[in-house]
C-alpha cells in the first residue's frame, strides 16, 4: 500500500507556479528524502500532504484517504514538524504537548509526554515557557509533539536545522525506528547525510517539478 499518492499535483500562489504536475507514489514503510534548492517547492509539498495547504490542481491521498475530503483522518495518521516550531510561546513545554495530546484525544497524556520528553532530552524543560527556550530546544519540542501520537507517517521539514548533536542523534534514532517498525517518513532536507540513513526513495525537486526519483518511481 502507498502511504502517499500524488496525482498531477499542482500548486500556485497567484500567478506563481510552485508545484507542477507531480505524480508520485511513496510506499508504506519507507523513508523518502526530498531535496532541492530553496524555493523548489519542498515545504509546500509537505504542507499539502499535512493538510495545511490545499492543492490548486490534482489529488493527494494519504493511506488511501483524500486530504481534501478526509482531512481529520489524514491528520490522525500524520505527525508534522514544519520549518517553524508551531508552539505557543507563552505556554510551557508541558502545556503545549498536553494541548496537542488533548486535541488528538490521547489517553495517558502525562506518561506519553514523559516518554517523548525523556527521549528528546527535554524532560528538565517541561515547566519552562517555550519563549525561554533556544531555537534548537524548540525544534526538539516540536519533534516530540509530532511523534507523541505515534503516527504511521512522519512529515519533517528540514528537521536538522538548529539541532545540536544530541538532538540529531535523537532524530536519527526516531527516523530509524519509524523505518524498522514499518512506518513511513518523508523528510525535506538540504543535508540528507546528517540523517545517517539510506532513504528508500530520494526525490529531487527543481522549480516545482520532480527531476529525479531513486530508487522507487511513480
Amino acid at each position, binding site marked *: 500500500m502507498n502511504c502517499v499518492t500524488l496525482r498531477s499535483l499542482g500548486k500556485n500562489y497567484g500567478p506563481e507556479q510552485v508545484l507542477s504536475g507531480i505524480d508520485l507514489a511513496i510506499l508504506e514503510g519507507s523513508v523518502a528524502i526530498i531535496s532541492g534548492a530553496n524555493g523548489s517547492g519542498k515545504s509546500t509539498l509537505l504542507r499539502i500532504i499535512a*493538510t495545511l495547504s490545499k492543492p490548486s490542481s490534482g489529488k493527494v491521498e494519504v493511506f488511501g484517504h483524500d486530504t481534501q475530503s478526509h482531512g481529520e483522518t489524514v*491528520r490522525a495518521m500524520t505527525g508534522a514538524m514544519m520549518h517553524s516550531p508551531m508552539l505557543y510561546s507563552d505556554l510551557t513545554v508541558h502545556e503545549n504537548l498536553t494541548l496537542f495530546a488533548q486535541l488528538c484525544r490521547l489517553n495517558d497524556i502525562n506518561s506519553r509526554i514523559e516518554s517523548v520528553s525523556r527521549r528528546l532530552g527535554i524532560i528538565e524543560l517541561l515547566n519552562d515557557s517555550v519563549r525561554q527556550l533556544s531555537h534548537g530546544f524548540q525544534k526538539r519540542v516540536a519533534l516530540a509533539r509530532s511523534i507523541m501520537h505515534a503516527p504511521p507517517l512522519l512529515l519533517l521539514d528540514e528537521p536538522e536545522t538548529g539541532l545540536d548533536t544530541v538532538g540529531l542523534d535523537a532524530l536519527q534514532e526516531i527516523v530509524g525506528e519509524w523505518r524498522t517498525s514499518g512506518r513511513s517518513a518523508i523528510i525535506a532536507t538540504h543535508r540528507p547525510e546528517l540523517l545517517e540513513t539510506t532513504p528508500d526513495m530520494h526525490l529531487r525537486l527543481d522549480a516545482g517539478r520532480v527531476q529525479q526519483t531513486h530508487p522507487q518511481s511513480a
Partner: protein
Amino acid sequence: MSARLKIIWFLALKDLRIESRNRDVAVAIIMFATLVISIFAIAIESESGANTELGSGVLWASIAFAGVVGLARSMSHEAETDAVWMLMTAPVSRDLIFLGKALGNLIFLLTAIVAIFGVFGVLFNLQVFQPQIIVAGVLGAVGFSGVGTLFSSLTLKARAREILLPMLFLPVVSPLLLTNIQITVETLSGESWHTVSAWIQLAVVYDAVLVSASAFLFGYVLED
C-alpha cells in the same frame, strides 16, 4: 461533556491561560474603550437631552473599536512561531478550532463589556445594568467574537492587518451595532420588553447567521 465540546473547551482554555499570563487582550479592550468613553463624556454636556441617544452610540462604538484591538491582539499569539499550525495539524475539524478560538474571544469580550458598562454608567450617569441591555451585551459579544475570529484569522498574514481588520470587521458588524444601540436607547428611555424584543430577535438572527457562516469559512481562510 462530549468529545467535541471538550476540544472546544481545551482550545478556549489555552487562550485563557495565555491571557492570564499576559493580560493584554481584556486589558487592551477595557483601556481603549475607557479612553473613548472618557473623551466623549467630557465632550458631551451631561445635562443635554440627547445624552441617552448619543451615549448609547458612544457605548457601542467604543466596544466595537476596542473589540478590534483585542481581537487583533488575541490572534497575534497564533501568528507567533506559526502556533496556529499546531492546531491545524491536529486531527480535529476546522470548525472546532474556530469555535474554541471564538469562545476564548467571547469570554474576553464579556469580561471587558462588564467593565465598560461600569465605566460608562459612572461617566454618563446612566443605568446600563438592565436586563435588556445585558442581553444586548451578550448578543453583541457573540457576534463580535464570531466575526472577529474569522476576520482576524483572515488578516493573520496580511502586511497591513492593523488597518485591514477594522475595515473588514466594522462594516460587517454594523447591523448588530445599530441593533444594540437601538436596544440601549429604547431601554434607557423606559420602553417595555415587548418593544425591545423585536430588536433582540433581530440580533439573535444576525448572530446565528454570522457565527455559522464564520465557522464554515474559517477552514478556507486558514488553509492557503
